[in-house]
């Protein structure tokens, strides 16, 4: 039935009368069904809104970013290793360095540190809750874990600055009060619930029959988890980690508080360095006049963040497709 349409509309080839001797029957709609049309319109609007907002963001970035790149070459921006956007005369383009790499490396470094914390702890928590914990323990544990995701990020920022940094200082020999490792670790804790909760959902969704099949072949719990449940849930787990990465890259408050305001091109996590979001927070909250170079720089960095997140999402979709084990 290739002509059948999903919404019950008339197939294109329909409408052919066939001779019929008996009493006629009226199959036309008995009411106009306005309610359904209204509901459909409301739902279309809801779905369209998020698309419109995204399009609006891209559109609003476009003009200032174009303006920025009339003054700064793309090559200098992407490959320059010095960023001094807030130095010197506010309205002078030429006395500043516009290399964004220090901000990008700091962002990636802190993201990496946070993943080193969040992935093992998050997956560990997910495996425990999904495969080992009793129903009762899970019911208590999971909401508590999710509360952790609701803590305001400014609290995490102060935790990093006033608790984690002083603890790490003598251990690792951090020089100043700012470092990348401290906000990285705290950000990792912040992401743990995201990774754990979504991974746990993915693993719990693996059918019990697969686990039973594994146990019946003499596998123990760990083998069943690692060899059957984990691969079957992998696409959901990848999605959870990617969401964690996106949160880490976009996270602002923790790094603004605990990583410092100095752009620094370094691979040493013990040093403080400004991230992309950190710069945006600093410049946007400071006295950046409309139309000044640093004003346009805000948009350029915003656009770069947007592109990075987009790339990560695209890569993750690829990964999920590649490793998907449908069951």
């Amino acid at each position, binding site marked *: 039935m290739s002509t059948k349409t999903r919404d019950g509309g008339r197939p294109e080839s329909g409408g052919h009368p066939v001779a019929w001797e008996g009493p006629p029957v009226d199959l036309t709609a008995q009411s106009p069904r306005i309610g359904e049309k209204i509901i459909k319109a409301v739902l279309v609007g809801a779905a369209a809104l998020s698309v419109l907002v995204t399009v609006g963001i891209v559109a609003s970035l476009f003009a200032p970013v174009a303006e920025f790149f009339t003054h700064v070459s793309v090559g200098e921006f992407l490959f320059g290793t010095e960023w001094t956007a807030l130095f010197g005369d506010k309205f002078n383009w030429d006395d500043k360095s516009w290399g964004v790499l220090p901000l990008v490396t700091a962002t990636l470094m802190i993201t990496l540190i946070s993943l080193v914390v969040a992935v093992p702890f998050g997956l560990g928590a997910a495996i425990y809750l999904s495969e080992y914990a*009793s*129903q009762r323990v899970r019911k208590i544990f999971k909401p508590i874990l999710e509360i952790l995701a609701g803590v305001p990020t400014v609290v995490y920022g102060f935790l990093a600055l006033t608790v984690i940094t002083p603890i790490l200082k003598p251990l690792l020999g951090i020089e100043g009060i700012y470092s990348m490792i401290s906000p990285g670790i705290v950000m990792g804790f912040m992401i743990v619930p995201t990774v754990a909760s979504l991974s746990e959902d993915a693993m719990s969704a693996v*059918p019990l*029959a*697969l*686990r*039973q*099949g*594994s*146990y*019946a*072949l*003499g*596998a*123990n719990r760990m*083998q069943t988890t690692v*060899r*059957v449940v984990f*691969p*079957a849930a992998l696409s959901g787990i990848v999605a959870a980690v990617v969401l964690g990465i996106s949160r880490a890259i976009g996270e602002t408050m923790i790094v603004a508080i605990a990583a410092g305001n100095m752009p620094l091109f370094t691979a040493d996590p013990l040093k403080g360095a400004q991230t992309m979001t950190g710069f945006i927070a600093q410049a946007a909250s400071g006295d950046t006049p409309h139309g000044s170079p640093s004003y346009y720089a805000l948009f350029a960095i915003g656009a770069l963040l947007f592109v990075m997140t987009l790339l990560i999402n695209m890569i993750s979709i690829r990964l999920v497709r590649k490793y998907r*084990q*449908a*069951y």
Partner: protein
Amino acid sequence: MTRSEQRTVSTEQRTTQGDSTPEKQVTIERSNTVAPVEGAPDGVITLKDLEVFYSDFRAVTDVNMSFGSREITALIGPSGCGKSTVLRCLNRMNDLVPGARVEGAVAYHGVDIYGEDVDVIEVRRRIGMVFQKPNPFPKSIYDNVAYGPRVTGMKVSDMDTVVERALRGAALWDEVKDKLKQNAFGLSGGQQQRLCIARAIATSPEVILMDEPCSALDPIATAKIEDLMVELASTYTIIIVTHNMQQAARVSQRTGFFTAEADEKGQRTGKLVEFDTTEHIFGNPSDARTEAYITGRFG
């Protein structure tokens, strides 16, 4: 066992109140049928006063029966009579159900598998299981079959040979030999179920438990699995739970009939009513409840 055999199972009219019941005949014609057995089973697995609880609920009680090696034993009975529960006790799959408790003994070669120093993994390696719905892992056909030997740490010199032998044993080799690396989900339902059988025999078990293995399959796939069961019975001990009485009559040599009876509080507990050779159960059952069930008057 390729001889053509026709077995006719008829039930006499044996009614207690003298009213007549329509005579029912089940005629089975197949190329592949197990030979009938005589005498008592040798008891490769023996159940003694088996009783299973799910928390406070007594699901099955008072089961005493014995399974013969290289025989097919069918467990039949209406829904909720505890036959699947009994089957799952035989390789301790009930361990996975929270609150499940087993009393009495399940002796495998005389050893109670619920004994203290029994390793459940050893039990399950020797007593394999095939489930109601085909449940291949979302892996390649090859990896599905190799899974059991790998996780149980079997000393295998050549996994390819093990996989091939298991797939041949499950009459699946010719259909899949060119696509061993493909995902098992690409197979049809019947092929998936034979893959699950291959997976089970890859660990070289002695006993294979089958929990309604054909209930999710079409008649052609069912016939293939039944033929396979009969063939496997020359090597393995098979215990099958089935709702399909013709199937029990066709493939099994012994049949146990279970039913559930409610106590004064309305709790239904499963019991073994009658256990005998399949010929006897379907031809001349001793218990009126068995006869009522197999003639289709209840359940």
